[in-house]
């Protein structure tokens, strides 16, 4: 075994010297490889982390949300319907929710107005108080104690003192959020006391969510029931779609890289062919030459892959992905500003490694093998 290792060491020495001798071309190739991995790695790491973030946030969402439907459109839920749902066995903590959107012409942004859950005492609000998301606070330059002023489409004014600014950790879903008391909400949007936007409920046994939703649908046939799993899938689809869009754009880069790699690999220079012929003539086996070239290709591609992935990791988790966040987070004025928790999906990274390393190594080795298999005399000629 020591002989095998010694042989590999000699081959590695030669491969390193060979890389150094053609350092200009190899450096360009390395940089292109690393840049490609950086772009693809950034998209994959960001997409994976943001989906995980969304899943963590949704952990606290209600198990089921019931929305009244009328003519195929979302309609207001009524207090009497909440009472009907309370008779469904297995349902718990059923409450009407108040939320809606407001387009604010002064900042050219959309806000989500909502009332806090009765089951979240830390978010309880009195009339004239508000809790705002990180994006709203940033855009309106708000902090605790300051006043938020909003004007409804009907011209009603809402003045609320900011009680709290939500933490950036939840910004993915709360960046544009404004929480106000139910009294202020109803007054602002001119809602009757028995009207709600929708109905939220918990299910005692998590494995019974589907069953309880079904029972709810029987009790309220003109409602649609959305489970937390449905919401998670929506987020997943949204971010996957955006990730796919970026990856599609990056396909151009992949193609360019493939052409370059093929050109390098298939375009063995006369000097390289001659060198292979000389090595064979002085006693190297075909397998020695292929191993040496494998070391060479491996050193370039693996180091470029590691460098690209490291840069992608730093770009996404240390710098919040400034190059791609606009596409992946959304197009709203209120871009969420939050730091993603470092999370690497090993399967995706492995897939990326296979999709970049293997084609490159194969493209390099195929013509080398053809050349190294021929008689040395023919190759040197």
């Amino acid at each position, binding site marked *: 075994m020591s*002989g*095998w290792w*010694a*042989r590999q*060491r*000699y*081959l590695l020495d*030669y491969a390193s*010297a060979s890389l150094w*001798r053609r350092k200009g071309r190899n450096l360009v190739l390395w940089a292109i490889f690393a840049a490609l991995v950086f772009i693809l790695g950034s998209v994959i790491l960001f997409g994976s982390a943001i989906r995980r973030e969304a899943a963590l946030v949704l952990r606290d969402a209600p198990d089921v949300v019931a929305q009244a439907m009328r003519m195929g459109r979302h309609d207001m839920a009524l207090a009497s319907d909440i009472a009907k749902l309370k008779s469904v066995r297995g349902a718990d903590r059923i409450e009407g929710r108040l939320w809606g959107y407001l387009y604010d012409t002064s900042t050219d942004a959309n806000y989500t107005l909502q009332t806090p859950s009765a089951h979240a005492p830390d978010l309880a609000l009195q009339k004239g108080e508000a809790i705002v998301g990180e994006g709203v606070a940033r855009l309106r330059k708000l902090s605790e104690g300051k006043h938020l002023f909003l004007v409804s489409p009907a011209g009603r004014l809402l003045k609320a003192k900011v009680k709290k600014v939500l933490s950036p950790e939840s910004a993915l879903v709360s960046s544009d959020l404004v929480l106000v008391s139910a009294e202020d909400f109803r007054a602002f949007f001119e809602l009757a006391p028995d009207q709600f936007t929708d109905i939220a409920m918990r299910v005692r046994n998590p494995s019974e969510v589907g069953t309880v939703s079904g029972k709810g649908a029987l009790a309220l046939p003109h409602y649609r029931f959305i489970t937390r799993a449905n919401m998670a899938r929506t987020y997943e689809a949204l971010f996957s779609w955006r990730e796919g869009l970026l990856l599609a754009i990056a396909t151009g880069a992949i193609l360019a890289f493939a052409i370059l790699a093929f050109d390098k690999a298939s375009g063995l220079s006369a*000097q390289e062919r*001659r*060198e292979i012929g*000389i*090595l*064979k*003539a*002085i*006693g*190297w*086996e*075909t*397998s*020695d030459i292929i191993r040496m070239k494998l070391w060479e290709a491996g050193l370039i591609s693996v180091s470029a892959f590691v460098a690209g992935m490291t840069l992608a990791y730093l770009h996404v988790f240390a710098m919040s992905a400034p190059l791609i966040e606009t596409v992946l987070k959304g197009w709203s004025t209120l871009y969420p500003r939050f730091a993603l928790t470092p999370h690497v999906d090993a399967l995706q990274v492995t897939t990326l490694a296979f999709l970049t390393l293997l084609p490159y190594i194969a493209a390099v080795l195929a013509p080398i093998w053809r050349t190294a*298999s021929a*008689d*040395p*005399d*023919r190759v*040197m000629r």
Partner: protein
Amino acid sequence: MIELQGVSKIYRQGRSNEIAAVCDLDLTLQDNRVTVLKGPSGSGKTTVLTIIGCLARPTQGRVLLDGEILSGLPEKFLAEVRRRTFGFAFQRFNLIAGLTAFENIVLPAYPLAPRFDTLKARALELAETFGVAHRLDLNVDDLSGGEMQRVAVARALINDPRVVIADEPTANLDSERAAQFLDIVATLKARGKTVLMTSHDPRIWSANVVDRVVEMADGRIVEAA
């Protein structure tokens, strides 16, 4: 002993521009002898060297080394034979550009994976024998033609082969360097090596160290002395 029996080599066989470089050639080379192949360009001298040295396979006929047929061996075994039996010094030296003289000398030993200190000592000994010890750290591109040739000879001997093959070894050398090369050949012979060379150079044919001169023309042996 090396024997060529009915060896022919045809390049681009079957095409309109095929060339018969060697035709039905029989040749026997005894051990520890210095043999020179002479003849005009295109007479097939270099092709015979490449066939004997397992760098090319004959189109017809067979090559035997100590009675064992080499010409039909798979590539892996031919590489082993090239590595252990033959040492090559090519006409244009065929050193690897960009590497130092030392790195070039030790290259044939890499697949054998010897201990590095042993390999280094052997390379130093050869470099001293051929007068290039002080040039070992230089890039081969910075060496003179004579130095390159001596590095090429040292490389040919690093694995201590039985047979040294040199193609037009004095073609790029002045008289003084050519004489030095013949001294090297004498050293090799004294060490028990078999030497096979091609040459246009009358200084080589007439050298005392040469045991046999084989004249070739049009791919055939026309005279053997």
